[in-house]
């Protein structure tokens, strides 16, 4: 649905985006993670056919971003960096206007507007001027705008910014539903937890380049090493790690705990638990050692700084 090959954008001497390549099939979410000025918004604007790439190619919903810009824009729903709402207009009028711009028939858009406003808890505010909305309400309205014409591709820039936890959950649920509906979604976000929850793949962007790309687990393995499990025991049991060293690779140990890696945890863990139980070793917990996306991000940036 979204394919990009070496997409590059220079503004005079400034390299805003450099050789960015990725593929987002239908029903997938790609999260673009990166600091401000990394090139995320420039990439999104190229994919919306607002900016022309300096080099490289991309297609959105099967349309080339350079040669078929009108078709690209008709197929894309964009939640822009700034919500871009007309403050003197009511929410319903605003959505009706954009629905009309996107060619949604009148009766269809009326129904959709009503349903979407209800879904995001804005039904009672629909006839009020947007100038009176809170930040979170404005963000939700902008999100509704991007979904109104039922596009196969969505480009969402910070969709949950300025939202309370409940509204943010509503938005995340909506994005998950959209993914289920076989849409390709690019999500620009600083919220790592959100990216981890929603994204099928993550691209870490720095200084216009993608420095890491893959699904969250693959990135964790690549940058943080293989998965580790940790066993915590009720009391000190020196040497207990040695009793399982034929089964797993113990990487760290303490008096009442040890961490290990295995080729196949599904096979190794039950055997390990049984063996320890047979030895009357009191197991308190067996958990995966957390590998956060934050750690992935920081490691990726660290490695990139080391190579540049």
């Amino acid at each position, binding site marked *: 649905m979204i394919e990009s090959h070496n997409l590059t954008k220079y503004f005079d001497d400034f390299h805003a985006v450099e050789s960015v390549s990725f593929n987002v099939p239908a029903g997938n979410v790609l999260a673009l993670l990166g600091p401000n000025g990394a090139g995320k918004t420039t990439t999104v604007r190229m994919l919306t056919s607002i900016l022309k790439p300096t080099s490289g190619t991309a297609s959105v919903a099967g349309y080339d971003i350079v040669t078929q810009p009108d078709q690209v824009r008709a197929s894309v729903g964009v939640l822009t960096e700034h919500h871009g709402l007309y403050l003197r207009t009511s929410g319903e009028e605003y959505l009706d206007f954009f629905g009309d*711009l996107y060619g949604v028939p009148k009766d269809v858009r009326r129904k959709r507007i009503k349903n979407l406003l209800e879904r995001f808890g804005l039904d009672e505010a629909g006839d009020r001027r947007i100038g009176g909305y809170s930040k979170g309400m404005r963000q939700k309205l902008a999100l509704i705008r991007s979904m109104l014409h039922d596009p196969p591709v969505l480009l969402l820039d910070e969709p949950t910014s300025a939202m309370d936890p409940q509204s943010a959950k509503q938005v995340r649920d909506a994005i998950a539903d959209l993914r289920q509906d076989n849409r390709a979604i690019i999500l620009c976000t600083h919220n790592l937890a959100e990216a981890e929850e929603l994204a099928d793949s993550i691209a870490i962007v720095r200084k216009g380049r993608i420095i890491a790309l893959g699904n969250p687990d693959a990135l964790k393995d690549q940058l943080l090493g293989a998965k580790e499990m940790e066993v915590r025991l009720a009391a000190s049991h020196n040497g207990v790690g040695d009793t399982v060293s034929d089964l797993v690779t113990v990487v760290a140990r303490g008096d009442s705990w040890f961490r290990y890696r295995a080729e196949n945890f599904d096979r190794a863990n039950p055997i390990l638990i049984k063996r320890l139980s047979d030895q009357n070793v009191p197991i308190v917990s067996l958990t995966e050692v957390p590998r956060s996306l934050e750690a992935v991000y920081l490691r990726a940036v660290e490695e990139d700084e080391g190579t540049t």
Partner: protein
Amino acid sequence: MTKRMTNTFITRNDLQRAWVITKREIRDSFRDWRIMMPILFLTLFFPALMNFTAKAAVDFVSQYGAEIIGERLIPFLLMIVGFFPITVSIVIALESFVGEKERHTLEPLLSSPLSNIQLYLGKVFASTLPPLAAAYMGIIVYLVGLYINLHWVAPIQLLIQIVVLTTVQATVMVSAAVVISTQVTSVRASNLLSSFVIIPMALLIQGESVIMFWARYDVLWAIIFGLVLLNIVLVRMGVQLFNREELLGKDLDEINVGAMLKFFRKEFVGESRGSIIRWYRYEVTKSLKRLGIPALMMIIVLIAGGIIGFYHAALYPLPLALLQDVINSSSGLRDRLSDFGFFTTQGVGLVLYQNVRASLIAAALGIFTFGVLSSVVLMLPISLAAYFAGQAAAAGYNPLLFLAAFILPHGILEIPAIILIGAATINLGASIIAPPKGKTLGDGWLIALTNWVKIFLGVAFPLLIGAAFLEVFLTPTIVVWALGK
């Protein structure tokens, strides 16, 4: 997307889609008291005030037998009543794009599937229609009041002229203002640049006022025609310059003199690699090739100038006796010509200075008038020459012989120089209407300026030097010989 709107055919679908934008903008305008209050004032209160003024003036001047003043004042005020509401259109148009950019509402619009022309037209209509409707209503209010107070009914032709003039003036102002709005990065900058719209319109209104008091209403048609042409140029310019990437991407209006000089130098030097021969071979030739159509236009302008000059010789003849006196009593002509600087190197300098100065003035005028005024300035010497040729013909002399003696010797170099300078200036003026493909307005203008300098320094100036020598030494020699003195 980022390509300019090269296909400017407007379809019914374009108008329908543009109307979506227009409807929203008009609705938004009606909610903005800063727009509605002036429109309401100018639609209702101002025409009533002008009614009162007209009646009071007519009553006053009638006491002194000067009814003609009242007769001329009434149509003049009709024009003013129509013009004032449309001035609001500039306010709306100037912030049509840049205002949305400042309020961050532009990107969702640019991300929509509206084509560039649909977006552009939508904004133009939205800026034009409410003030124009207010102008028409104001005219109606004024006319109704005049009929009630003075039983005055506007002649149908005058009424049509005023309505058409008001409409065309509104569209010209809006077209120019929208061009400004798409090229600047802040509403403040667009307001500052609005003087390029307001001052010419103010001058035009003053001219129209003179015409109204002079009752030369037929001249209004010429003004309307000129404004229609100007509107076509401005709309085309706006369409050519409209670029989503530049609209959204440019954040600063910055004059980077260093970058401009660097660009100029790069364009000027080109592939010459320091060799003047290469410079002529590659760069000057390249610049000359760009002047095909402008040169043809300049030739047509000069021919037209010649015809106008020759025609006016019959309309405004010099006293025949004076002409014959000048020709017959030309003993000691050579000495008298020397007194004027002919046959001296000082004279060469003077002629050259005059020609260079005229070229630079023409270029300066051409920049602000899309090349039009420069063509007029450069046409004048040809018109004058043709005028005097016409006078010679009237005096019984062969005009071609006159031209061969008085003009051709130096004209053979000077006329091509005029054509090239005029063509390069038309190119320079036109560069802001339609910059080269893929270039910004600033880059396009710099390229055209560099071309102008290349043509002037490389070709025209050497020709003018040669022409100056010929004009000071050869032409007077031939003239003296031809007159047998």
